[in-house]
């Protein structure tokens, strides 16, 4: 398979995670202290590198069929989670993830927390906030890079996609010095959900023993189909919501 779809999928998925990590790091650095924030980030990156170094090659040694079965199942479950949230947010059943309000929440918490020096770190709160933010968002990046890279036997392309996303988001974040509120995060999550579900379904079924009609070309049909069905769910939920709220509006009009 061409490496471009792999690079683009990993790029978009990692960009979403990088935006969320950047919001937390900015909140810690601006309101508390940059030195402790950078220390927290650095330790999280070392832990992530160690996890990748331990898991990545080990997964590469596993036989491809059971690997595709397990990884396909995980990716499909993971992708459906993302799609579920994206559809609920697009239809107003769940609040949109707003980086500006997430940033404000972190800033408010950071401003009220006490300053404490521990284990050679001058501001323990800034350190742990940056460490947790980068580690948790980074774990999803590692999961995507390792699973996509190993399954496609092209870890290099997956790493290029992830590294490009992290560089682009970090440089943009440094340039604007504010949370990236203009990023259409929900639609990016929708796109990532579509890709994770499509690849997960494809690999999972292959791991279970099926032969896809057209082999790898089946993905070119599967991904648009997943997008179309998910878009159909958005239309369905919007019309359902409108149908529920219409009688309520009518009764309000009658009573007034």
């Amino acid at each position, binding site marked *: 398979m061409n490496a471009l779809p792999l690079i683009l999928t990993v790029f978009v998925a990692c960009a979403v995670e990088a935006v969320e990590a950047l919001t937390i790091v900015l909140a810690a650095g601006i309101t508390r202290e940059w030195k402790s924030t950078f220390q927290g980030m650095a330790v999280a990156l070392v832990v992530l590198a160690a996890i990748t170094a331990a898991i990545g090659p080990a997964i590469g040694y596993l036989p491809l069929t059971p690997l595709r079965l397990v990884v396909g199942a995980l990716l499909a479950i993971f992708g459906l989670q993302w799609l579920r949230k994206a559809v609920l947010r697009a239809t107003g059943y769940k609040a949109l993830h707003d980086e500006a309000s997430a940033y404000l929440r972190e800033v408010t918490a950071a401003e009220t927390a006490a300053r404490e020096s521990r284990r050679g770190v001058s501001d323990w709160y800034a350190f742990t906030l940056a460490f947790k933010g980068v580690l948790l968002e980074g774990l999803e990046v590692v999961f995507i890079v390792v699973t996509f890279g190993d399954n496609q036997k092209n870890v290099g392309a997956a790493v290029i996609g992830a590294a490009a996303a992290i560089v682009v988001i970090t440089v943009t974040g440094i340039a604007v010095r504010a949370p990236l509120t203009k990023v259409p995060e929900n639609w990016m999550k929708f796109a990532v959900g579509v890709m994770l579900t499509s690849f997960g379904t494809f690999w999972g079924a292959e791991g279970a023993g099926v032969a896809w009609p057209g082999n790898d070309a089946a993905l070119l049909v599967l991904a648009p189909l997943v997008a179309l069905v998910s878009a159909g769910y958005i239309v369905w*939920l919007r019309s359902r919501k409108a149908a529920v709220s219409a009688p309520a509006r009518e009764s309000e009009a009658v009573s007034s």
Partner: protein
Amino acid sequence: MNLMNRVKAFGAFWYDFVIGDDWQVAAIIVAALALTAILTHAAGVNAWWLLPLCAFAALGWSLYRATSKTSE
């Protein structure tokens, strides 16, 4: 935080990371994969269509339940 709480927090993190908000979606996908493997290996049916159908059904079912709760 004692050891038990740490273990619980660790387990809760991985549950949330892998399974997420709706465990039934995960259960449907695992069941669909098992059925696909049985159909393919035991019955000789190339059931490539089963997993996508189950994934679409799982998403629709999960969305239906999530929005029924909030619209009631």
